[in-house]
């Protein structure tokens, strides 16, 4: 009997210590969305249960190992206990009930994260190898940065251009895959303004998956209106010139995900000071990167491959000749 | 159920079962062209499959008690039967997966296919099962000549089925625009018929082996290989019993 009392006390003490330990060892990131609250609540509840169950198994196990350890030279056997049906039924039924309760609460918290605000702002999210594009149909603008007004629900309508990606901002908690050929949805209500957030692709999507991270910026209403106005003005101005249109195209198609615009290394050749330069092709020949070469490289990426970039195939984008001319005009401004 | 194991009643049973199967196939075809009830088609396919599994594949033999030494031929035959059935269970998960794929991609539509040809190859395979059953029964009762003749007929019919699917049906479908790369319907059709045809091919090899060995004089006492070949052949037939409605009959045809 004494054994049970000691173990019982130890289990309770260990469970409490384990719960505090878990909270120190496994902190959650900042909770910055309305959807984070029910998830964090559920997580906390699970940690309580886990701490208790951990103590319930580990304490009697370690206790047995210490107290019932065989003494040197002792050749006797342990007590002959075959089992106890009542005990077995108990530890089948009780966990079953706990599990059902947790599943019920899990479904409830899931529903909480999916509360629909009919006035939610719609943002069209496009994922591609390897970047993100965000379209705001209400304002007619698109961007590679996700600007969100604080405390307003946003409905993300997400599509993928090539392979499966997954939208995840750790501080917002919720996650949803982008599947080619269909539109998936996610609702987020950011609650804390800031520019520390990033949308990070959570589903392996190829070579540069690790780098598929775009900034997410949460601002107050005034800041959001200002940003929208600024973007609209920029877009209107850019549409006037070929290089402006080219830049817009490059944003929309995520060219910078592979072709850097500042001379840094990437999956494809950098655009910085590319126009007019001498480039070495696979096979040893050199060629001047004139308009014809650039146009061909955009149209038929596999026609001439720059040395050092054999291992990655650029997809064909199906631009019109005018669009290609705009993009080349934009590339020429990068020097 | 008690089973009379003498030769005549076994052969008669084979004939009865074949008549049932033929009638059910006709019913199935009639249902498909007249009022297209998916539920009825599934029910008919299940009944046909159950008939073949029970009467042609003798699934009940798994229950037989084998007294005595673990090293005796009888006991080992029981083990071999179990092994073959376990293999068939495993294999049927492939075909199950293909059915899931077909249901997921096509739902209640089906590829546009030549109905007469479909019914034709289905009948050929069903008839081949009938002869296979005769051949196996005869060998089990020591009738080598009957076994060789019936197995040869089975082999020829099987070859006919394979030709019908791979060298007639495929080119015809491709001619009408249904190719492996034409879309989900084409992909499902070629994958399912192709996987089944591969099993038919292995079944034919199996039949050829037991036929040649039978001609060489084996299987007087130890005739389990003939039974195994037959059970495998019937299994391939059962798969087609399910695939035939899944590809040719259920749902509406899309071009």
């Amino acid at each position: 009997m004494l054994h049970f009392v000691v173990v019982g006390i130890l289990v309770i003490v260990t469970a409490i210590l384990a719960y505090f330990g878990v909270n120190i060892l496994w902190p959650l990131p900042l909770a910055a969305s309305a959807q984070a609250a029910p998830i964090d609540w559920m997580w906390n509840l699970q940690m309580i249960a886990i701490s208790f169950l951990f103590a319930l198994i580990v304490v009697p196990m370690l206790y047995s190992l210490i107290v019932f350890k065989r003494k040197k030279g002792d050749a006797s056997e342990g007590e002959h206990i075959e089992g106890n049906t009542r005990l077995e039924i108990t530890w089948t039924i009780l966990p079953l009930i706990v599990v059902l309760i947790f599943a019920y609460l899990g479904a409830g918290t899931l529903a909480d994260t999916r509360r629909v605000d009919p006035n939610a702002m719609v943002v069209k999210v496009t994922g591609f190898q390897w970047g993100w594009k965000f379209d705001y149909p209400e304002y007619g603008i698109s961007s590679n940065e996700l600007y969100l007004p604080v405390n307003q629900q946003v409905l993300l309508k997400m599509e993928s251009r090539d392979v499966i990606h997954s939208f995840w901002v750790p501080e917002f908690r919720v996650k949803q895959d982008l599947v080619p050929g269909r539109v998936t949805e996610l609702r987020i209500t950011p609650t804390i303004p800031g520019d520390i957030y990033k949308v990070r692709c959570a589903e392996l999507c190829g070579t540069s998956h690790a780098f598929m991270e775009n900034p997410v910026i949460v601002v107050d209403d005034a800041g959001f209106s200002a940003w929208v106005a600024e973007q609209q003005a920029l877009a209107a101005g850019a549409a006037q010139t070929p290089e402006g249109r080219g830049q817009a195209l490059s944003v929309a198609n995520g060219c910078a995900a592979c072709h850097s615009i500042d001379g840094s290394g990437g999956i494809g050749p950098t655009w910085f000071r590319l126009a007019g330069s001498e480039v070495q092709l696979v096979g040893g020949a050199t060629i001047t990167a004139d308009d014809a070469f650039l146009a061909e490289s955009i149209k038929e990426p596999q026609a001439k491959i720059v040395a050092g970039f054999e291992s990655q195939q650029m997809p064909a984008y199906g631009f019109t000749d005018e669009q290609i001319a705009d993009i080349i005009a934009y590339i020429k401004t990068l020097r | 159920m008690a089973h009379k194991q003498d030769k005549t009643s076994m052969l008669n049973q084979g004939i009865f079962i074949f008549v049932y199967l033929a009638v059910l196939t006709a019913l199935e075809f009639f249902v498909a062209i007249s009022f297209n009830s998916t539920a009825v088609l599934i029910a008919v396919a299940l009944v046909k499959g159950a008939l073949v599994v029970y009467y042609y594949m003798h699934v009940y033999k798994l229950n037989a008690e084998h007294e005595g030494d673990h090293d005796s031929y009888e006991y080992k035959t029981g083990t071999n039967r179990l092994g073959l059935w376990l293999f068939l269970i495993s294999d049927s998960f492939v075909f199950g997966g293909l059915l899931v794929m077909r249901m997921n991609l096509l739902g209640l539509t089906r590829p546009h296919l030549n109905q007469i040809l479909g019914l034709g190859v289905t009948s050929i395979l069903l008839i081949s099962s009938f002869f296979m059953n005769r051949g196996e029964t005869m060998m089990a009762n020591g009738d080598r000549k009957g076994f060789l003749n019936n197995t040869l007929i089975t082999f020829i019919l099987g070859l006919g089925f394979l030709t019908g699917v791979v060298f007639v049906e495929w080119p015809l479908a491709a001619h009408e625009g249904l190719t492996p790369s034409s879309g989900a319907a084409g992909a499902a059709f070629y994958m399912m018929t192709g996987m089944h045809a591969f099993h038919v091919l292995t079944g034919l090899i199996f039949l050829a082996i037991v036929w040649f060995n039978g001609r060489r004089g084996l299987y007087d006492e130890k005739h389990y290989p003939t039974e195994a070949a037959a059970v495998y052949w019937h299994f391939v037939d059962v798969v087609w019993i399910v695939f035939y409605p899944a590809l040719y009959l259920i749902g509406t045809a899309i071009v």
Partner: protein
Amino acid sequence: MKRKYTLGSGFLFLLIAGVVGYGIGLGLDLLATGRPHFSAPVPSAFTILFAFTAFFFGIYGYRGITRGLVFQIAGTLAGGFLITGIRLLMGLQAFGGFFFTEPAWVLGGIVGAVSFLFGVGVMSDWVKWARGIDTPEFHEDEPGWEKYLGVSLDHKVIGIQYTVTALFLISVGGLFALIFRTELAASGLQFLVKDMSLFGQNGPQLYNTLMSLHGMIMIVSILLGISGIINYVVPLLVGAHDMAFPRMNAFAYWIAVPAAVLLLMSLVLGGFDTGWTGYPPLSAKAPVGMQMFFLGVFVAGWSSILGALNVIATVIRMRAKGMTAMRMPILVWASVATSIIALTATQLIGLSFQLVMFQRLLGMGFFDPAKGGNPVLFQHLFWFYSHPAVYVFVLPGLGVISELLPVFARKPLFGYRWVAMSSLGIALVGFVVWAHHMFTSGMNEYLRVPFMYSTLLVAVPTGVKFFSWVATLWKGKISTETPMLFVIGAIFVFLLGGLTGPPNATVSTDLHLHDTYFIVGHFHDTIFGGFVFPFFAAIYYWYPKATGRRMSEFWGKVHFWLMTPSFLILTFGMMRIGLLGMRRRIADYDPALGFDFTHLILTICGFAIALSVLVFIINFFRSIKHGEKAEGNVWNSRSPEWQVPSPMPAHNYEQPFEVVGEPYDYGLPGTKYVEFAPAKSGRH
């Protein structure tokens, strides 16, 4: 005249053939592309294949595995050239970026794998049967170690072949892990940089390939490892002289060897950057390595399926007299439960990979949305196997825990029936939980809640096991030799894996946890607790049975006390950064997240684990000759295999035994589990 083969000649041949292979590969590459690629896929592939083969030639001569590998190389080339020739005749492009085109590599891979089986000689009895020639029931094996490199029908030899191959693959997979663990030690790309090129891949691609192969090679090694334990032990436990189908048993082992070769070839043939899950559409675009990976997994799957079939048939048909279902050793129950899953569900991963293979080869649009396909369908087919697969991995390990605990606690297994049934319960529930891998995948949303309920139900039978284990220890007379240490470690680590499971199974919390390092930490806990620790425990425990010697206790304890803390820190750290925002499968991470220090610790722990496994491997091979002699009932067990002297004779028990009691009645004087028939001559 018999040649004397040595390790020295093996390495000499390895070097020569490596150079020759490199030359041939470079020549072919030159022929196909017009210029030499010194670090390119084709020379590398030939180097590896030739060197590997020549090593076995050097130590073993042209027979058995060497002959198999030679056949595989020849078969691969034959299949490849066949397609290349056909393409030449049809006026299609004959050579690709990897010398052969993709279809040529696929057919080459298939023909190579089949050729291996003929070359190694595992098919010869069947070929004879097909030609109407009877063969003897048993084949006598060569004495000494040489029987392990050729075809043997003895389940004990095959068990050891499986185990050693598993250890080899664990080392390869672990080596890959060390490479990318080192890459992750700090943020920023360290040596797998963007402008490098090896095997036709740049740094991040190579990272992805190594990470993907780490996953699959470990999975294959686990499948081989459990087959090793089951093959060696289960026939002994049930009192059979061999498995039900000894030839198929050998076949199931030998088919795993070309599978391993195919998997390794996927690394050099351009790799694949999809993870072991191979989700399309990404896997439909990956390099040729993807196809080699699919083929390798497909072939390894057959090994698993046929092995499982054999186990079920053996347990049903070959049990000793008196061994009723409720008197079977618990490991036998676990093996049956695991085999039921492996027999059936494995077909689905094979099928899902085949479908992608054909999508790539023939443009069939199963998973291509542009052709009416459905990418999510792949995930359903794939996870229908790949979730139950983890129960395949852990159930035998849990069986080993249940089998060993009573021996070292000197008490009956608490609630035998409940433990036995909980294995079946886990296996059966395991069939209906697969979609919990897809909570964020965009599948039909109403599926999420039912799959949450079914997944959480797994906790119930697993809980029964834990409670029963603790109750078994309670009031025992516990001794802590190395096998018991690993059993305790297994319970502890598996407990952590089990407890971190429900948050992933609950949809709401999984929305945060899915595809993070939390998952990585969680499943490493379950696999280490459910497979790695019990696997080591089983090896330490049954080693004397196989060799007549014990492994060193001291080094066994060093192994345990080095591996366990490092591993715990590793997974706790993984889960910590996963919660904070570390995604799975990334070659690099944002320094702003502040994970550098934790990753450095994790890397150090990774190397510590590798060191401990190295200690184990040295102990394993050294003890064959130098271990302490142990020919009797080392652990004072009631189990039949320990009632006869070690090492086990070739045809197992000379006298059949009859089961006359309960398997785990420790502490009940005067009882026996088995009684051997009176000896006709001499012994007992």
